[in-house]
């Protein structure tokens, strides 16, 4: 194995003189305190990011404090990998897949590593494949039960070509490292397969036969998303917004409510207290879709803003690779990354230390390519066995100064299909979620297969109704501008009616109280009911005598609708408010 010695240090960029071959993105370990002065003995993990002659430039995933020239470096011969095996659900990892719960002290001491899964645990294995079967990477050989999901044991992703099953272990209890199958390759070589495999995180798992266009809508319970701009199973979306606009509250709402089998929350360079909220709440909250505890379907990858910057970049890839593993089992995976801007900033810091020529705002030139490449790993896939699995990816973006023309937002816009723009103006007037109804879009509404799906599952002509609502909001905004310029009296009463109709849609459908147990989560059935009720009112014409009468009428109507939103769907109180609304009309 190649070795080396440290020859230069600037912050976490370290230059190493090597004695043999090294690969780009190869992992290595630096012995801190290697200058022989007895300081420490920490093994610091690092990744090669540039090679010039016999000098490898490495980014260290940890503090380089006290590191001196001459420290020993050992190269590992592989890229950054995740360990994939049963037992990952409900765990909390750092960006390099160390289990945070297993770390003993209050502080994360430098160089600490912990096992990502329990290697001693026994799993009840049931074989699925039979000897003689022809298999490829990702083929299901057997299964175990991991909390509430059926966890498939697959032909490792790293095995290329076709193999023949020689034997599969009988049903029984096994450790993840025990051999559960033996495969023969075309040349007759034998390969033992256990329940654990490793995969380099920066490489996409390709163990699928095709990537069809997504067609099914994923319910999130957030009306401004599901009704107005739905995301699909296997879709991609992003949420840019200035600070204070409610990105995190929205992401948490989605992570609690979304109709997915597995949720991966990647806290990437954000506040630790936000992750603590998940640690504190998820073990108690119930998944509205299944009735199980939320934590049981969740994996947290947590590299908060004060954790090492280089590991921040790794964390999004770690999350994606784990997501791809569960997708290959035929599951619906949802990955939420907060925030991808912090990841881009980590790239910028490194690029800067490497003295690369900068692109816009000092970001690396290939930022756009890196982001598209990453988003393209999400999607719906058809697996070798014929089933489908999906990764839905929603990232937040924190644009500098709230300016959506900055490079990370622009690059992400090219890659993601749903755009949920959070607006400062809406946040300032406490109209939450602050998703701007006019700026935001979902490209999926244009997909014929999505339209057909909504026709069949919600009601025929649904997308057309949604579009009509959007037009009403647009016209309301135009009317508001006219009123601002000409004054309340200076415009026909009809303008006020237009304005108030769009306010009705805004207050009743788009605004939602994320902190109210009932209002926070609206099932599609209820969304359909409420939206139809509101749209029908908006499509009536009223003959108001003056703008004050109009405003008063709609204010009272909005109040009744809001009270209705706080009550249980189809309950007695709900219908009581409905009757009051009908009486008013």
């Amino acid at each position, binding site marked *: 194995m190649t070795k080396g010695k440290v*020859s*230069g*240090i*600037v912050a976490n960029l370290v230059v190493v003189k090597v004695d043999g071959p090294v690969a780009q993105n190869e992992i290595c370990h630096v012995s801190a305190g290697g*200058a022989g*002065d007895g300081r420490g003995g920490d093994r610091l993990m690092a990744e090669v990011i540039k090679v010039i002659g016999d000098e490898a430039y490495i980014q260290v995933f940890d503090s*380089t*404090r*006290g*590191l*001196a*020239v001459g420290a020993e470096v050992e190269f590992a011969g592989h890229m950054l990998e995740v360990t994939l095996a049963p037992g990952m659900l409900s765990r*909390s990892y750092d960006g390099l897949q160390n289990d*945070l719960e297993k*770390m003993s*002290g*209050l*502080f*994360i001491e*430098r160089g600490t590593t912990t096992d990502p899964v329990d290697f001693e645990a026994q799993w009840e294995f049931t074989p699925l494949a039979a000897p003689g079967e022809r298999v490829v990477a990702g083929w299901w050989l057997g299964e175990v039960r991991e909390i509430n999901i059926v966890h498939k044991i697959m032909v490792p992703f790293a095995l290329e070509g076709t193999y023949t099953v020689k034997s599969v272990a009988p049903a029984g209890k096994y450790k993840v490292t025990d051999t559960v199958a033996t495969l023969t390759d075309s040349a007759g070589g034998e390969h033992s397969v256990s329940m654990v495999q490793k995969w380099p995180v920066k490489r996409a798992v390709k163990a699928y036969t095709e990537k069809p266009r997504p067609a099914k809508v994923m319910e999130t319970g957030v009306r401004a998303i599901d009704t107005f701009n739905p995301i699909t199973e296997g879709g991609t979306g992003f949420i840019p917004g200035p*600070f*204070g606009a409610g990105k*995190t509250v929205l992401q948490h709402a989605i992570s609690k409510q979304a109709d997915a089998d597995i949720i991966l929350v990647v806290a990437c*360079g954000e*506040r*630790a*207290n936000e992750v*603590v909220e998940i*640690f504190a709440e998820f073990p108690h909250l119930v998944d509205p879709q299944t009735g199980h505890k939320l934590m049981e379907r969740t994996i947290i990858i*947590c590299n*908060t*803003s*004060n*954790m090492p*910057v280089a590991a921040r970049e790794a964390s999004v890839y770690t999350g994606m690779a784990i997501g791809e593993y569960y997708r290959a089992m035929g599951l619906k995976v949802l990955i939420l990354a907060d925030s991808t801007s*912090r990841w881009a900033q980590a790239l*910028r*810091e490194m690029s*800067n230390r490497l*003295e690369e020529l900068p692109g816009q*705002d*000092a970001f690396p030139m290939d930022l756009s390519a890196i982001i598209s490449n990453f988003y393209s790993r999400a999607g719906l896939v058809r697996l070798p066995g014929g089933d489908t699995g999906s990764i839905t990816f929603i990232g937040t973006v*924190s644009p*500098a*100064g*709230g*300016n959506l023309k900055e490079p990370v937002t622009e690059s992400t816009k090219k890659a993601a299909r749903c755009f949920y723009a959070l607006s400062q103006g809406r946040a*300032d*007037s*406490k109209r939450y979620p602050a998703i701007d109804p006019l700026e935001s879009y979902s490209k999926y509404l244009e997909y014929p297969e999505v339209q057909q799906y909504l026709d069949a599952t919600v009601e025929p002509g649904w997308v057309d109704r949604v579009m009509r609502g959007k037009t009403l909001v647009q016209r309301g905004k135009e009317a508001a501008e006219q009123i601002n310029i000409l*004054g*309340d*009296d200076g415009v026909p009463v009809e303008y006020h009616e237009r304005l108030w109709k769009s306010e009705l849609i805004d207050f009743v459908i788009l605004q939602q109280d994320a*902190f109210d147990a009932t209002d926070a989560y609206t099932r599609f059935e209820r969304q359909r009911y409420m939206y139809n009720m509101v749209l029908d009112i908006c499509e009536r014409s009223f003959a108001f005598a003056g703008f*004050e009468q109009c*405003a008063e009428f709609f*204010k*009272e109507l909005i*109040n009744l609708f809001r*009270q209705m939103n706080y009550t249980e769907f189809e309950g007695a109180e709900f219908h009581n408010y409905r009757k009051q609304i009908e009486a008013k009309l």
Partner: protein
Amino acid sequence: MTRAFQKIYTRIDNITKATVTLRAAGVGNDELATVGGRLAQVVKISGEEVTLQVFAGTEGVATDDEVVFHGEPPTLRVGDDLAGRFFNAYGQPLEGGAAPEGEPRQIGGPTVNPFRRLQPSELIATGIAGIDLNNTIVTGQKIPFFADPDQPYNQVMATVALRAQADKIILGGMGLTNDDYLYFKNVFENAGALDRIVSFVNTTENPPVERLLVPDMALTAAEYFAVDKGQKVLVLLTDMTLYADALAIVSNRMDQIPSKDSMPGSLYSDLAKIYEKAVQLPNGGSITIIAVTTLSGGDITHAIPDNTGYITEGQLFLRNDSDTGKVIVDPFRSLSRLKQLVIGKKTREDHPQVMNAAVRLFADAANAKTKLENGFDLSDYDERALGFAREYSLELLSIDVNVAIDAMLDTAWRLLAKYFTPAETAIKQELVTKYWPRSGN
């Protein structure tokens, strides 16, 4: 801090305004050194060449000055004898007296494992309704004041600190004017609180780069009291804009490519490392950070307030309210992200809805004001909103208010009932039934 066989170097190869470079062996990254009697820190090692950042600047440093390496990064001796003392950025006593004698700790230490943190849940009452009612602060939170340089942010911060009932208050002053330094000293002394206070101060008279040590010094002391002693510690950092300016100076002199607003590309991580030290610990101890970020011309899109806003758990804006002549906590732009953890839970059930309704109606008043300024007639509703806004500013938003939270809520209900109908407030019916003041009362 001397070690056996300490090697003295006497040949400096390069000198820039802030750094010196020399050939030395066995030097560790981040290590401290003395260059001609001034403190310096290793920032770059390339083979045998070591670059040191000299905190006090390099004016007068000669190529034959003595350079001695200390063998360790900056440390602070932590112990109970820190209490009641004022220190400079290096942790040396400012007004004579013995140096602290506790155990030396490296500043800028490791991160608390997020999994070991607790969710902040203890309210900090300040008596200021603009904070307690609209933007409740919680232990373990980090929140800055975004203020223009002419606003009384240091006074408000001192008031908050003294009312907050913290076990220790740690002041990290960066680029503090001498007058402000004396102000803090007097206020703390007069309140009889000096024994609860530890200060690390870099004034405008000191070299700017020294400021870079202040937050880490203050937070190392804070971690000692919170982690080792289980105390509730409040850290005041003023002014973080001057801290960031010092970062930019160093980065510039190290020939780094600047990103937005001439700030270093690592500004976000640099600030996060400081603010993320705010924590609620399982032993009951906590570190709460209240900071000041001064704005230029109220521009929050500048890189410093912008990055800060993404890190901190909200921000508090001060504003002069021309209608009442008071300094108020701006209800629109201020935000405390952690208030959701306590309002309506640790405070009365009606808190969230009353707070939102009042702010929304205050916004209606702002719209009415715009209409008035544009020469349009006001409706009856507009008139009522304006009346409400005036009293709301005076009785609740003004920073000179000092009342308990229940009294703030009662005041808010009284004002709502005086000017509006229940439907106009859009508050949940059950709360209206319970709290809406009967007419005539």
